[in-house]
């Protein structure tokens, strides 16, 4: 990289040579608040997302009380939530629906994706490719500051009359069209969040394509970067239809159009005074066109993290690196043509449903290949069970369960029975919760030293892992049985139905699992803050890893690298025969 380059990004127009360390110190608010540095932005996204993950989880913990003990007043917190939401401490059905819709929305759009892409992507990708920052640092800053108001609006919607959005995270009309004002807030918040994501995805793609260090060809990129690149394309191309759909639903709600409303609707005995002529399924097509690629956005960065952590802790190259890259690209491409498998029960014809069944079966193949490559990567290793490795290892069987249980859902004949039951909830939670979120925890434990210069405590980390791992299986495994028993999802009181009463005992198990999982996060939160000041100090490469980010100081300064990084070899050259160390970093000239 040329240090003589005109720094138009400075905005003050005067180009001058500098060594990348900043010739004057920025004021506090420019350094930590409105910063254009990818590391600061990454931490902003990461911390914001972790807060929302815990908040979204709290919403679910409230729901789990109602599910385990329907109609019982919630001790302690019941009174605090007000008479509208919890009259006499007992949850109202509309509040249950709000919690459900907001739990899903917040976990996906305010939690997992911002952490996986905004957090880890922003912090790690420029470092792993040897770049001084993202291609468009100020656009990066804008992305975060469009995202945060979206989050605030989303959460503020709880305080609107009628409460927050309550039509599921899927917001199907006509229900969402006629829902209370919280739904409008949801739509505007989504527009902000989607815009932020689009700006970010442009940044990621340009950065990865244009800013790689010398010697870093595509086939030498860490798998994490390949995963983030595919993810960025998914976000770029799949989000706009949902943005369009949100505009259409805003129009239906505020301007009384009928994009999603057919003629002849009668709500609560009153005919709706609208022109009609619309189609509720139009929303579903537009929504799922995004939301299916979105689930790959949820998993791909976590797969990337798992790849890095497995290679590092097995002390050998990843098995099938090229196969992994081809698979993840193919997966990204296929993810655009499976969406209607979420709509099999809408009265779809046999041609369309057969097409989507076939594409859905095909897309399972690259997932199977990726999982197999990861498991094969364990073979012949010298496995160190550090905390990141525990989470990365657990990811594998958890993702396997999630992926396998997708099969009965993707086949229409079995989907007839399983659609919209708890089986679906078990399926996707296995992929996202002990799947992605465990991958993200692996990333936190792995890269915390790089971001802070200190290691997280291993004992607390192992405690966090083991209790979480056990609790999370007690939460989601019983759901498959509830689904097979025919229990529908989104039911405020499942005991209304005989088949619900038949599995009610499992609801108690699940709820206690959830509350235990919450307790399991306490060691993590304590560890996170305590280690900032008391954690063991580390140098640049505490894990003896091979990828470029470990060449920079911990934490990296402005401009990231002390000298311009050059790449000399493949990303996972561990245990190379004849070498003195069991790792040969990409950035070291001699092996």
């Amino acid at each position, binding site marked *: 990289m040329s240090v003589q380059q005109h720094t138009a990004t400075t905005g003050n127009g005067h180009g001058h040579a500098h060594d990348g360390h900043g010739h004057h110190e920025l004021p506090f608010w420019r350094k930590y608040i409105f910063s254009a540095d990818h590391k600061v932005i990454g931490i902003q996204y990461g911390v914001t997302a972790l807060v929302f993950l815990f908040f979204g989880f709290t919403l679910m913990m409230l729901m789990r009380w109602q599910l385990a003990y329907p109609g019982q007043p919630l001790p302690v917190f019941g009174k605090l939530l007000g008479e509208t939401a919890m009259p006499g401490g007992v949850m109202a059905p509309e509040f249950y629906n709000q919690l459900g819709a907001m739990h899903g929305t917040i976990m996906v759009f305010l939690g997992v994706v911002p952490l996986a892409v905004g957090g880890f992507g922003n912090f790690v990708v420029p470092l792993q490719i040897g770049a001084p920052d993202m291609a468009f640092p100020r656009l990066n800053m804008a992305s975060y500051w469009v995202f945060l108001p979206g989050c605030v609006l989303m959460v503020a919607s709880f305080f609107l009359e009628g409460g927050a959005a309550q039509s599921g995270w899927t917001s*199907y009309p*006509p*229900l969402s069209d006629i829902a209370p004002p919280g739904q409008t807030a949801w739509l505007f918040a989504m527009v902000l969040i989607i815009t932020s994501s689009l700006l970010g995805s442009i940044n990621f793609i340009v950065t990865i394509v244009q800013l790689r260090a010398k010697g870093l060809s595509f086939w030498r990129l860490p798998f994490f970067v390949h995963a983030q690149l595919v993810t960025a394309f998914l976000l770029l191309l799949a989000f706009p239809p949902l943005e369009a759909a949100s505009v259409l639903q805003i129009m239906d709600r505020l301007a009384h159009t009928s994009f999603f409303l057919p003629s*002849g*609707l*009668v*709500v*609560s*005995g009153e*005919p709706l005074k609208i022109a*009609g002529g*619309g*189609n*509720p*399924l139009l929303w579903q097509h537009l929504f799922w066109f995004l939301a299916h690629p979105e689930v790959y956005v949820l998993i791909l960065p976590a797969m990337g993290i798992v790849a890095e952590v497995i290679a590092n802790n*097995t*002390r*050998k*190259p990843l*098995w*099938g690196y090229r196969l992994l890259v081809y698979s993840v690209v193919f997966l990204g491409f296929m993810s655009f043509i499976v969406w209607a498998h979420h709509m099999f*029960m809408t*009265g779809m*014809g046999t041609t369309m449903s057969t097409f989507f069944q*076939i594409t859905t*079966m095909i897309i399972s193949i690259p997932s199977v290949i990726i999982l*197999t490559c990861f498991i*094969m990567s*364990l*073979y*012949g*290793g*010298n*496995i160190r069970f550090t905390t990141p490795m525990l989470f990365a290892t657990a990811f594998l*069987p958890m993702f*396997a*369960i999630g992926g*396998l249980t997708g*099969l*009965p859902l993707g*086949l*229409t*004949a*079995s989907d007839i029975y399983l*659609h*919209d*039951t708890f089986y679906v909830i078990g399926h996707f939670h296995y992929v996202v919760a002990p799947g992605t979120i465990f991958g993200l925890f692996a990333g936190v434990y792995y890269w915390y030293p790089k971001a802070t210069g200190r290691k997280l405590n291993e004992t607390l980390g192992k405690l966090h892992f083991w209790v979480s791992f056990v609790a999370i299986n007690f939460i989601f495994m019983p759901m498959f049985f*509830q689904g097979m*028993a*025919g229990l*529908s999802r*989104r039911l*405020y*009181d499942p005991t209304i*139905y005989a*088949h619900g*009463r*038949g*599995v009610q005992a499992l609801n108690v198990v699940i709820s206690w699992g959830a509350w235990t999982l919450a307790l399991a996060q306490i060691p993590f939160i304590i560890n996170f803050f305590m280690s900032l000041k008391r954690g063991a100090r580390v140098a640049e490469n505490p894990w003896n890893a091979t990828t470029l980010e470990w060449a920079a100081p911990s934490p990296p300064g402005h401009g990231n690298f002390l000298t311009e990084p050059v790449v000399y070899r493949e990303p996972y050259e561990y245990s*190379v025969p004849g070498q003195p160390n069991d790792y040969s970093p990409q950035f070291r000239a001699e092996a």
Partner: protein
Amino acid sequence: MDEKIYGWWLPPDVSVHGAKIDQLMSVLHWFMALLFIGWGIFFLYCLIRFRARPGHAALYTPVKAIATKYIEGFVLVVEIFLLFGLSTPVWLAYKNNVPDSAKALHVRLVAEQFAWNFQYPGKDGKFGKTDASFISADNPVGLDPEDAAGKDDLITVNNLHIPVGQPVMVDISSKDVIHSFNIPVLRVKQDTIPGQMIPVWFEATQPGHFELACAQLCGLGHYRMRGDVLIDTPEDFAKWQAENAPPPQEAPAAAAPEEKK
């Protein structure tokens, strides 16, 4: 209603087409278990055999995995079989084997927040005309009071009576939001989309008292949108129809809805 039949797995199947669905689910879960246990054993083996310990080093050269190619091939073949050998035929049969209209019992369903409104055509075999403009508390499906064909139509709310051994064709729709017509023991599920009339058919094999549950979030009352499904012997069904038929009317008043157990 017998509670004991509901446990932690599939409830009994009392439909003609359900056996194939259950068989597919059974095959699927054995296949899934096989893959998981197979992977799992290898996975645990690796974790133990290749754990770091003094004197142990990692293998740099990738192991030649011919086995994985065969396993992937096997998975692919099984998935093709599941798709084209099992699921597609069952799905096509479910969707395309329309029962003989003359032999079937025809019912119409208009779902609403939060009830199931069924319309039976009555002795004349013809459904009375309906329109949204006639909908009222007493007339949940909006029967046209001027239409003679609707005079003998039987309207039930949250109550579906059907006979054993006769195909039933239900044309389903909704008057407000999307609901989903879901009877677990009959292995039937179909979303009710406002603005569309979607046909669903099934045939019961055993009498009994079962439940209808809404399977698509439809508002704050979604959880209590429960219906009773009474599968009668043909004789009992005929008796029920006769007992509940609207009385012959001279004046053109809309038939009053009956709520019967």
